[in-house]
């Protein structure tokens, strides 16, 4: 089984500006693949090249084992995508937008099927409303609906939760997880919102300045490197006094109410807590807050 997505040495430059710089990427069937990077890292440019919206300067793109240059239509028939903002024909209703776009993708655009897809994204009650009356969140949902309408094998979601409220973000995450688990879809999820990837993706790549910095399973990547821990205590002042005269003095990053936050190597956690206990600081709990966010910032700062 060939990889669903295989990018080799992908490069795009505009004059002197290099947007994507020799990117390699492999996404296998069934992956929910997080495509992470700060704004301007080259994520959207890469996705646009994958969808033939932009011509690469160099490199190769293969999807479903076929080169994009020679099998464009065959490939696009199997992809559903949202690329950045969810823009639609505002003068048409949600149903009519899906119907017209679905026709071009060879989808079943019967009223019943269109309404079924709108129901999946929670828009069936607004099917006949013009899109110009929709909120940003509703347009994002409609974007997912148009990506699903022709039952694609690969779903490419570029910043699908941007601008959504917390409820909207949870809903979109639920839909992404369902797509992979219930419907067996492969999902490429581009985002700069890290919890989104952390909570949904199985594998991920982090890119910056158009280059891949690290690639692998999300859990594997999170278990490497330095941890951030919250040490909960009723005596914050005493804890701070002890830590600021210890080898961890420069690692006390911040304090909160009833807690001290430390940045530690994994093997230092025990030593730090033992130090506090030995100095009669009562500890209620030690909670790792090391997150993908921290990992991401560390990595992108190192490369920058």
């Amino acid at each position, binding site marked *: 089984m060939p990889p669903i997505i295989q990018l080799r040495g992908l490069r795009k430059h505009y004059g002197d500006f290099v947007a994507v710089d020799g990117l390699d990427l492999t996404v296998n069937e069934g992956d929910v693949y997080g495509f992470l990077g700060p704004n301007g890292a080259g994520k959207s440019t890469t996705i646009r090249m994958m969808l033939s*919206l932009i011509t690469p300067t160099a490199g190769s793109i293969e999807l479903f084992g076929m080169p994009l240059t020679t099998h464009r239509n065959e*490939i696009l028939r199997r992809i559903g995508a949202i690329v*950045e903002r969810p823009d*639609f*024909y505002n003068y048409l209703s949600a149903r009519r937008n899906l119907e017209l776009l679905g026709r071009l993708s060879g989808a079943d655009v019967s009223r019943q099927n269109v309404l079924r897809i709108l129901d999946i994204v929670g828009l069936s009650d607004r099917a006949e409303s013009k899109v110009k009356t929709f909120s940003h969140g509703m347009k994002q949902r409609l974007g997912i609906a*148009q990506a699903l309408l022709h039952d694609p094998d690969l779903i490419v979601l570029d910043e699908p939760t941007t601008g959504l409220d917390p409820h909207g973000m949870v809903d979109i995450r639920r839909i992404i997880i369902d797509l992979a688990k219930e419907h067996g879809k492969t999902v490429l999820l581009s985002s700069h919102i890290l919890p989104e990837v952390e909570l949904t993706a199985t594998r991920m790549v982090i890119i910056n300045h158009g280059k891949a910095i690290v690639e692998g399973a999300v859990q594997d990547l999170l278990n490497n490197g330095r941890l951030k821990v919250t040490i909960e205590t009723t005596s914050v002042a005493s804890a701070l006094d002890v830590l600021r005269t210890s080898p961890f003095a420069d690692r006390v990053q911040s304090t909160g109410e009833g807690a001290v936050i430390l940045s530690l190597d994994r093997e230092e956690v025990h030593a730090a807590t033992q130090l506090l206990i030995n100095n009669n600081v009562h500890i209620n709990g030690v909670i790792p807050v090391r997150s993908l966010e921290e990992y991401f910032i560390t990595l992108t700062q190192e490369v920058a």
Partner: protein
Amino acid sequence: MILTAIRVELAKVFSKWRTYIGFIAMGVLIPIVVIAMGIEGSAYFDFATQALQQAFTFTGNLMNGYTVGYILLGMLYVHVPLLVTLVAGDILAGEATGGTYRLLLTRPLSRTTMVTAKFIATLLTTNLLVLFMAALSLALGTLLLGTGELVVIRSQITILAADDVLWRFVLAYGFAALAMTTVSSVAFLFSSLVENAIGPIMTTMAIIIVFTIISAIDIPMFDHVRPLFFTTHMQGWKKLFDDPIIWSDVFISGGVLLFHIIACYVGAVVILRRKDILT
């Protein structure tokens, strides 16, 4: 696939308010002109022929539906280009403005197919407007003012018998459709270059105005370029009311217009095929 794409494009075009502006404008203007001609047409005809009335006597129903149709065709030629560019200028640029190129060009249809479908939708809309204009002006004119001889005053006076006029109108409106298609094609080409519909509309109108002025100024240095301007040939419909018709002139004008249409279409295809979609 191309038929599906054309149907989709037509559905989008006819869902937009701006598409109907031309039809509404014609629907209002033509009845007003026909009714006004019916009421004061004789005075208008006397004014138009006052220089000739010392030498000629005009009798009969000369302010009839055919005369009004001829006058309307000449008058509306100035305004219809603006109306057809409203659709043609927006059909590609509107996708860029609305950010919907991203939706459209990630479908499994080639860019050439997409541009062709849009071009055909533009041509159909343009020709529908010309057909509407022809049907309304001739039907309303002959219904309210009857038929009769058509007096054509150009470099010479041509009086065409009533039964010799209708086929000329059919060909003249056919030629008008070709001329308006040329205007649409120019706007279509500009629409492929920019990301806002106002630009192609303004640019096309500016070109028509500039070329028309150059065509009208009788300066020898323009003699070589004037035949190349599509605006020079847009008035070719008038040759169909000459007697006899010099067909070679008609075909040359038609050929120049057709060349512009094909060149604009090919230009738009090449531009869109090479364009990076960044909006």
